[in-house]
């Protein structure tokens, strides 16, 4: 047994873990981060990094990528639909496939952006506590209500009407072009074991729109994890998997897998997924809580990988989702335990990490443990050779809990425990499994650190 040298141990050196660690260090705590992987992750972070995270921690060397055009979707007739950051350019591109859709594009973009701004407000603080009797919390909830009302009557209606909708219904209300609806609809099913016709996918669409400019429906990419890893003030131990230790309802530290070493600390903050964090200490938990943790839906549906064509392609972000039906059929296969026969594929070209021209793949839907013939099918979708594709097997949900309406806000990670605490004193959660969830690197980490401090 070693003596207590740390005020806090943070499990996981991803964006959220590092944000929490640095924030705790700023508050004067001696912090150790334990990360299971030996080498730092060089893949791009996908998702909007809240500027407040950057400012508060003084993160430097941050590379924010805002690809333009932000989406290239091949058209069945040849050519491609290219959506740009410039509203006028997108409008022109959409007009070529559907003049009616082009007319609606600006208003659609504005309405979605307004709704995403409501989510943004919710995401930079712990979720509203609807059971509270604390006047300050009640005032905060009232303030949120007022904020929404000030956006106007239409925003209130949209919020109530659109969040539970399916992305297919939402897009069918506005547009006619299959190519446009497929490309937008893909964001609604992003990391979700749901098809575009499933309720709540409109929310998932808006979630991933938070932080993007109006008319841009793909999240930003950055090197935020690498930038955070390069900062001083915390100690990081790599290549060791940490298991939480707890006794008599109190966290006491972690044990490291290979060495068996025990590191003591009165506070453990885990950015790993809630289920695997809590499993080793299940005996300390109330059965109701343990059951709720067991019920977290975190079904992995995405395989990531890389694509190496002979020449660097012209696009920044290629999307193979030609229609909503295409996505729905891809989902149908996964319902019955199979990888999609024709999967939704997205290729993201990034400049971050290991130099120019790296192409990262997002393949959905896959079922962990399968993947027979998947490489070939992805190659076919991209008109490439299988040897140019390298897929990693899919794990549980990268988001540590699907972003469905029953698993967000005060229901995340489990109902009633959304304030980053657990029933074990001194054990906190700060990863994507907590509010506001995956796809917004650093937000959960920041909220958690503020709650802890």
């Amino acid at each position, binding site marked *: 047994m070693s003596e207590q040298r740390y005020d806090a141990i943070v499990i996981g050196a991803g964006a959220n873990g590092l944000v929490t660690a640095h924030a705790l260090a700023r508050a004067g705590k001696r912090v150790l981060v334990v990360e299971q992987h030996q080498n730092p992750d060089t893949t791009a972070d996908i998702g909007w990094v809240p500027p407040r995270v950057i400012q508060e921690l003084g993160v430097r060397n941050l590379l924010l990528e805002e690809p333009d055009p932000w989406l290239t979707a091949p058209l069945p007739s040849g050519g491609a639909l290219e959506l740009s950051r410039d509203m006028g350019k997108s409008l022109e591109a959409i007009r070529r496939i559907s003049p009616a859709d082009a007319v609606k594009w600006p208003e659609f973009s504005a309405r979605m952006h307004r709704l995403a701004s409501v989510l943004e407000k919710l995401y930079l603080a712990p979720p509203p506590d609807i059971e509270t009797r604390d006047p300050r919390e009640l005032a905060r909830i009232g303030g949120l209500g007022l904020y929404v009302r000030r956006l106007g009557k239409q925003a209130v209606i949209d919020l109530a009407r659109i969040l539970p909708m399916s992305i297919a219904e939402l897009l069918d209300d506005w547009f006619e072009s299959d190519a446009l609806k497929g490309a937008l609809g893909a964001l609604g099913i992003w990391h979700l074991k749901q098809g575009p*016709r499933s*309720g*709540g996918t409109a929310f998932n669409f808006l979630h991933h729109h938070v932080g993007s400019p109006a008319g841009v429906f793909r999240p930003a990419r950055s090197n935020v994890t690498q930038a955070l890893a390069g900062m001083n003030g915390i100690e990081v131990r790599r290549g060791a998997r940490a298991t939480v230790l707890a006794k008599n309802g109190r966290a006491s530290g972690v044990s490291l897998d290979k060495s068996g070493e025990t590191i003591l600390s009165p506070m453990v903050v885990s950015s790993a997924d809630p289920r695997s964090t809590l499993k080793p200490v299940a005996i300390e938990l109330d059965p109701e809580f343990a059951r709720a943790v067991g019920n977290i839906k975190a079904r992995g549906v995405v395989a990531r990988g890389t694509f190496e064509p002979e020449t660097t392609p012209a696009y920044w972000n290629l999307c193979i989702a030609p229609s909503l039906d295409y996505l729905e059929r891809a989902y149908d296969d996964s319902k019955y335990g199979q990888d999609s026969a024709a999967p939704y594929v997205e290729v993201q070209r990034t400049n971050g990490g290991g130099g120019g021209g790296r192409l990262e793949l997002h393949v959905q839907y896959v079922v962990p443990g399968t993947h027979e013939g998947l490489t070939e099918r992805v190659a076919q979708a991209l008109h490439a050779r299988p040897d140019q594709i390298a897929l990693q097997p899919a794990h549980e949900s990268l988001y540590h809990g699907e972003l469905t309406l029953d698993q967000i806000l005060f229901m995340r990670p489990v109902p009633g425990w959304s304030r980053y605490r657990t029933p074990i004193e001194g054990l906190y959660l700060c990863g994507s499994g907590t509010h506001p969830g995956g796809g917004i690197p650093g937000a959960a980490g920041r909220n958690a650190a503020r709650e802890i401090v």
Partner: protein
Amino acid sequence: MAKRYDAIIIGGGHNGLVTAAYLARAGKSVLALERRPRVGGAAVTEEIFPGFKFTMFSYVVSLLRPEIIRDLDLPRHGLHILPLESTVTPMENGNYLAAWADHDETRRELYRHSPRDAEAYDEYGHLMHFMARAVKPILSMVPPDPTSFAPGDLFALLKLGKHFRGLGAERLHALVKLMTMSSADFLDEWFETDVLKATKSASGIIGTFLGPRSPGTAYVLLHHYMGELDGVFRAWGFAKGGTGAVSEAIASAARSFGAEIRCDAGVSKVLVTNGKATGVVLENGDELAAATVVSSLDPRRTFLQLLEAGDLPDDFVSDIKRFKFRGSSGKVNIALDSLPTFTCMPDGGPGGRLHRGAVSISPSLEYVERAYDDAKYGEFSRRPYMDIVFPSMIDPGMAPPGKHVMSIFVQYAPYKLNGGWTDAKREAFGDAVVNTVESFAPGFKSKILHRQVITPLDIERITGLSEGNIFAGELALHQLFFLRPAAGWAKFATPVRAYYQCGSGTHPGGGIMGASGRLAAMRILKDGT
């Protein structure tokens, strides 16, 4: 023009009749107009084949509001509800799952499939009972408008917030889950027996264009606990004389209060002068004047068909155009020479009780989900989900002695079928239904004397329900409460003064509940027109 009525009700379905009865009871001169030769709308009993009576469309009663039964004294007007006590689900391996009237027997039956589920069943039942009780008051309230700053709306919203907070954390969380999850996911948290989850979740998809894995279907599980008695997990009732008898009873009550009901009197148009409804024009050209006009038709016909384009504001019109119907269910009515024998329970159980209850063709979650997949892409289900009852077993008056009638509710049959519905497609759909039943009850086909196949298109043609949606508009989360049928217009009034809506397309909608009709009547009386 002759007499000027205080109120004219368009449509003689159960909601229209309830509104008529309540208004007449308050002393108003009321005329209800029905297009068809008989009242009832989708709740009618008809002798389709000589001697065989069918509840043509809706076939069970579970949610009829008790206050309506009381206020209108319906039993005195002939309403008599007989319990449908059990549900048997035949499985593809020849086994079955049954839910009987007796709670302990149901638990023993569940135990046979899974001891764990038998344990969870009671806890689940308690929670659902509680939740149903918590939600029930909402069915009897006028939805507040959250976009309004009117003191009444703000107060109602606060009251609603307080009501829900009063539930306590655990139940509030369960409610959020019920409102947002798919029935399959919700049930996965409780049970492991697939056929149990399939049968329960099947009741969550009725009338929707959703599958058991589609979020938004869990909420409907609650509905089945609202009308429940003595722990039966799907307490449905069957009206003596069929659902048409429910309509007749309400009509009789309305008449007893002085309401006039005219059949064969379709309305082609609502007369509007200076933004105010003044009467109606019948299909035969007659004009009738009224101080108030109330439509019980679905929102599409209430606003887009009965009014002129210029009568309504544009954004309201686009809201109504966006309101979704997507009919997804059909009905097959069969006259039988004798009862079919199901492989899973050849003797029909002690006392033949299988045929006295419902038979649910929902052998597995995958079965029901695949039925939905067919419909998603514009085909009827090759092997559909079915809810079968034998009304003649409960009410012998429905068929000639020794013979039987069988009512098969079928899902999915999309209104927008690829290539459209034709006579050949209708028969093919009927064949799919019959063949599927045959696979669970060999020899069934040879017992069929007559069959009537009803597609969503037929439902639309006969009852007028747009796209054949049995709830007069989908019961999806974004079409409920203050969004039914459109934001700002969920309180039964419409943008046209003196023109009201009272059908299932308004809050709370759906099923033979009558709540919409009653709430609308209250609102009209309060407005004092």
